[in-house]
């Protein structure tokens, strides 16, 4: 309790000293201000980027996704080509039947990049034949107010229905027209629009496209919002003329089973393809891995820079404290003469350093908010991918406590010097 009273008195005294030497105090704070500002701003921005990257990987189907695609046969198997029919619905049935850890299997039969027409308006996009499993594998959905997705019945009856990506729908239909139920022409054939996919940009993002120019979303998500989806059976029977698939999307129950699942799928497909490796399996793990490395590199380099500036800030504080003690040797002598103990002076000068660093830290936080705000603004102008970074109280608190620790460490040596000054010598000092 007594110590608390002493600390309180010392802090009040520290604030007064600060007030008495405004310019000097501000200069001594500048290092800490810059250090905290850069530390907090950088970590915040990096975290924002990391968040965006996570969303990107998620948009690619997350780390639970395995993609199976056609691949040219290796040279030594080329002469056996007719032994395999390529990817077909049989592969889908086989995987579903034999590998329970694969939760969803989404076969895709690409029709191609084709023209969509509605009442004289036209737009070109990719036509994909898919099944209901496409939604969970792609991590997409159809908002109930936006119709429905392709159903098993559509597959069964090879219906002429389609689901549009939001940007395609926005390009094909004027804003005052409800696309649902409209009949459009796909590669000359009539299809009924039964649903619109969710707009990816709107998903989990804080701010939508800054300029608002790309209808239904632009930037790196644009390609995800285009495309038209029809029942896979319709695609194979009415357009492609064969039941060959262009690829499979698989979703594993948990990311932990990924490697095991990859192995199982590969074995199963080799079996159905008569031992021919005319397919390739890819996962998002490599992407995620690259991104983790980038994240670490960013954190280390930016953290290093911020750490150095905080260290320099600490030296600045120590410098100013030593200068201030030199100026106030007589004051220290007087205080000792009237009864101050060494510990009183230690506390007094340490508190001054602490007050400088806390205030510097707080100003630094304010500056970092400004920096992040500006960076968000600039980045949004340059790449409209939505907001880059948002504030995290934990990071700010860490930045502040870091500055306080630096300030205290920097204050210890000057404070010890003040505490150990000989009062007689100090009083003689001119």
């Amino acid at each position, binding site marked *: 309790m007594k110590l608390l009273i002493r600390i309180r008195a010392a802090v009040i005294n520290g604030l007064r000293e600060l007030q008495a030497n405004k310019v000097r105090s501000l200069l001594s704070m500048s290092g800490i201000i810059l250090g905290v500002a850069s530390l907090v701003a950088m970590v915040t921005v990096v975290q924002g980027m990391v968040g965006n990257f996570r969303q990107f990987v998620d948009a690619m189907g997350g780390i639970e996704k395995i993609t199976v695609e056609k691949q040219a046969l290796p040279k030594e198997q080329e002469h056996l080509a007719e032994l395999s029919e390529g990817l077909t619905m049989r592969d889908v049935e086989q995987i579903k039947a034999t590998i329970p850890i694969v939760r969803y299997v989404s076969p895709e039969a690409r029709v191609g990049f084709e023209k969509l027409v509605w009442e004289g308006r036209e737009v070109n996009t990719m036509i994909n034949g898919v099944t209901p499993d496409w939604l969970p594998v792609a991590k997409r959905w159809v908002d109930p107010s936006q119709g429905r997705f392709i159903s098993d019945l559509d597959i069964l009856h090879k219906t002429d229905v389609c689901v549009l990506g939001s940007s395609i729908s926005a390009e094909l239909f004027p804003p005052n027209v409800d696309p649902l139920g409209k009949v459009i022409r796909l590669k000359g054939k009539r299809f009924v629009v039964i649903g619109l996919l969710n707009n990816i940009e709107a998903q989990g993002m804080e701010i939508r496209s800054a300029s608002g120019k790309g209808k239904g979303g632009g930037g790196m998500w644009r390609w995800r919002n285009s495309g038209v989806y029809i029942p896979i059976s319709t695609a194979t029977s009415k357009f492609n003329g064969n039941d060959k698939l262009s690829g499979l999307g698989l979703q594993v129950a948990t990311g932990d089973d990924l490697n095991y699942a990859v192995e199982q799928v590969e074995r199963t497909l080799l079996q159905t393809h008569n031992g021919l490796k005319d397919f390739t399996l890819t996962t998002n793990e490599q992407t995620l891995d690259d991104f983790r490395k980038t994240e670490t590199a960013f954190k280390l380099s930016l953290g290093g820079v911020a750490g150095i500036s905080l260290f320099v800030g600490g030296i600045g504080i120590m410098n100013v404290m030593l200068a201030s003690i030199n100026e106030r040797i007589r004051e220290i002598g007087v205080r000792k003469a009237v009864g101050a*103990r060494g510990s009183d002076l230690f506390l007094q000068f340490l508190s001054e350093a602490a007050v400088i660093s806390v205030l510097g830290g707080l100003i630094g936080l304010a500056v970092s908010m400004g920096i992040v705000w500006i960076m968000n603004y600039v980045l949004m102008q340059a790449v409209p991918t939505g907001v880059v970074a948002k504030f995290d109280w934990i990071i700010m608190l860490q930045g502040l406590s870091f500055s306080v620790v630096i300030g205290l460490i920097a204050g210890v040596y000057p404070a010890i010097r003040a505490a150990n000054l000989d009062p007689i010598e100090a009083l003689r000092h001119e």
Partner: protein
Amino acid sequence: MGSLATIRGLHKTYLMGDETVHALDGVDLDFDRGEYVAILGPSGSGKSTLMHILGFMDTPTNGSILFEGEEVSGLGADRRAWYRSNRVGFVFQSFNLLPRLSVLENVALPLLYREDYTEAAREEAAKVALERVGMSHRLSHRPTQLSGGERQRVAIARAIVAKPAIVFADEPTGNLDVKNVDRILDLLGSLLAEGITVVLVTHDLSVAAKAKRVISMRSGKVQEDRRQ
């Protein structure tokens, strides 16, 4: 009255380069409560060293000091700080008021280091002490706004605020004009009535003449101890 301090065989030696300096070379003295003493001597006579040791700012190399019945010659730094804040007051030639603090805060400063005073009690005690030296009308002034005589009165208030047993005045009139010298010396003399022992440390005979007892020092020894 009664005895305040008894000094026996006090030695203080410094090492200055290779040379040993005997600042105090066997001093025996007795101080009573409420005494008005002047310690007279040229610079280098040991009078400042004696004041510093008796004022708990320094420790002797050898010898014993009984202060209020307790042996204090070997006290550690914190214990000596306690004596400085509870039993001793200092008045300096150059006043040594802290320029950033107001008059009231300067006077309350010694109590800041005592745990038995609340903020309100400190202020109250400082006001009483300032009243005692006739400076109640300048509470919120800064020292730089005061004349030399006024500053020294504030310094005396600071020296007596903690109700000390002894006040040391080190050349208290050295920076004052003639008009103020007498006022300050009279003010110091008036402290005796409160049982405070006042020790004037000076090389000025006319200042020493004000005291009831003059101790003359030379080369670290008491040359003469005369009551007048």
